[in-house]
């Protein structure tokens, strides 16, 4: 009963992993293609739900491993670290803050001095999303892609290594970018936003000229969405319907000074990030596909298959198939061994078994129901 429940839960996890990969892809695609806010909100709520699910999954697995005294084994040997990386940090630093923003209904109201901090926080949230890509590895561990346990383990390990290195290097480089000012789209955007912020902060917006200058400035800076002076809107790039339809809390920020407030468009940054994320996602999927469909078969042909044939030949009476040796790879250690197996072991085995019958293809299990049936009839 317990095994059945565990099997059902494992299946649910597999389904969830597949769905979360689709969700991750859609999340970036929706950002890149400027899908409507209600649609994107549904996708973001989905992200939060999945992060919560995987966090609960990780904590459950860790708890049961802990009480069984094998927490270390779970984390380091059974890929528990992937479960961790792809759950708690995402809930805390990515989907969690976004959910709070969605729940509170808007972007945080900030002063000019906090613009830099805000951008860093937003960037950190975006960087944390890179860790979602580790979930591809979670599904990978459920795929039985080779008959050989050795091939399965080798391909699995090299894939994990490649994807992990990729994700962590991107993650680390992005984190460095948070603390060190490097030229790029982020810095250009920040400079633009800061320019508006400083203007708002330093100029006397009570003066009519300055207010008009701000509006003219806003017209030429595509990052500025709206300039509000008290209850009056001085400038708006789009209509209110457009804002309602296409803007969510993470798509803009609001800089204020006295009665004047400026709404800044964060979507270009988000789109650039989504484009990068999609590229990373596709790179990782392509890397895994390459290992699965190119390296896996190559490993089988050059390592595990000949070893499997030799192992059968050494263990099974009457099994006399030679290991196939590709001409180009004849110098490999495995094929040198296969050559010795073909040329010395098999002929010797054949001589030693000369005159004997081959091993039977029949198995005792084939008779079990017959013997049980007889026993049952007689007992009746």
């Amino acid at each position, binding site marked *: 009963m317990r095994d059945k429940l565990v099997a059902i839960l494992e299946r649910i996890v597999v389904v969830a992993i597949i769905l979360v990969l689709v969700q991750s892809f859609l999340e970036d695609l929706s950002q890149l293609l400027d899908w409507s806010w209600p649609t994107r909100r549904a996708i973001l709520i989905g992200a939060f739900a999945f992060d919560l699910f995987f966090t609960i999954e990780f904590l459950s697995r860790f708890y049961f491993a802990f009480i069984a005294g094998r927490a270390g084994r779970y984390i380091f040997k059974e890929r528990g670290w992937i479960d961790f990386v792809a759950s708690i940090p995402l809930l805390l630093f990515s989907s969690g803050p976004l959910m709070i923003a969605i729940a509170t209904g808007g972007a945080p109201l900030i002063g000019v001095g906090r613009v830099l901090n805000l951008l860093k926080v937003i960037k950190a949230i975006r960087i944390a999303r890179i860790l979602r890509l580790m979930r591809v590895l979670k599904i990978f561990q459920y795929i039985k892609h080779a008959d050989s346990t050795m091939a399965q383990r080798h391909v699995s390990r090299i894939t994990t290594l490649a994807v992990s290195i990729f994700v962590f290097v991107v993650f680390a480089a992005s984190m460095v970018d948070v603390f060190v000012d490097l030229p790029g789209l982020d810095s250009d955007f920040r400079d633009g936003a800061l320019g508006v912020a400083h203007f708002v902060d330093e100029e006397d917006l009570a003066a009519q000229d300055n207010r008009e200058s701000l509006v003219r400035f806003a017209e030429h800076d595509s990052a500025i969405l709206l300039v509000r002076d008290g209850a009056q809107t001085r400038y708006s790039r789009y209509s209110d319907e457009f804002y309602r339809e296409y803007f969510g809390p993470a798509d803009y920020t609001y800089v204020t000074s006295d009665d004047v407030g400026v709404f800044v468009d964060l979507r270009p940054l988000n789109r650039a990030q989504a484009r990068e994320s999609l590229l990373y996602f596709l790179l990782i999927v392509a890397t895994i596909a390459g290992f699965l469909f190119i390296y896996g078969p190559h490993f089988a042909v050059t390592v595990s298959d000949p070893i499997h044939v030799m192992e059968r030949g050494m263990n099974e009476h009457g099994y006399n198939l030679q290991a196939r040796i590709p001409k180009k790879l004849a110098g490999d250690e495995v094929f040198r061994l296969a050559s010795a197996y073909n040329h010395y072991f098999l*002929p010797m085995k054949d001589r030693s078994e*000369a005159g004997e019958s081959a*091993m039977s293809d*029949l198995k005792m299990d084939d008779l079990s129901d017959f013997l049980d049936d007889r*026993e049952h*009839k007689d007992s009746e």
Partner: protein
Amino acid sequence: MSTEEQKATAFVGRLLDNPAIARYTPLQKEEQIIQFLNANSGQLAPTLQSNQFFPERSWTQILSILLNALMSRIDEELQKYLDQVFDRILNWDFVSFSSQNSAGVDACRDEVRTIVGELLERPDARRAFTGSFAAVYFGSARRYLDHIYSRRSYIHFELTKVQRLRMGKDQVQGLVDVSLLLKPVVHLLTTPGENPGAQGSGLIQPQYAENVVSHVRKKAPNLPEQALASAVHANMSFLDYGFVEATSRLASIFSARARNYAPGMKVDRGADSPDKSWLSIARRNYKFYGFDVKMLDELYSIAAENMW
């Protein structure tokens, strides 16, 4: 039929119906089951000695009962196969080529069938007959002779120039097939359990071969001399006796190959094909079995080309 015989028949029937051995000839199935019984005697004995099966019988007695039931079932099944081989598969035209007696074909066929029937009554000959029969039934000679005749290489030269067979490919195939069927006649002069040849390889000496030829000649006066000699010499080493005919050498190889041959055998990924593997090993062991290594080379090349 006694209760014990009924139980034995049911037990053996169950084994024979197993899909794992469905692709084999009846004699190969018999060998498979005997091997199974011997390999699993430790587990089978306590069960079969229980009240439900053969109480108060020793394992040796039970084995004897089971083997009798098995041979009886196999003999029944084998008749259909033998009819097929003698009436449809075998090409008897070589008899007309070898003797001028036109009535000899039917007589020859009947004589060979009688000898085969006699061989099947002897357990040792029965075992030796397994490979030969499988080779004929599965058409080993036909498969390879097509390529041998299109290549016109070493084996073709040995058949047509050295053995001087003035007959077509189909007749040569018939001659090789009959050589295969009669190869186990060397067991006709032995007592049960006695081996007519060397341990392992089963190779016989020329003097013994002559005795066999004389013995069989009396039983099959219509069988061409060439066919009888070819069949008996198929048990001799070509390395020691260079006069062994090309058809004998082929029969010797095909018989050994077909003993464990299973059509449509699943080949593991990373393994060579069954015939190619077998012939490669035979090339290494040709001295042990007395095979003609040049023939093995050519057959290996054919098997490799055709992925057999």
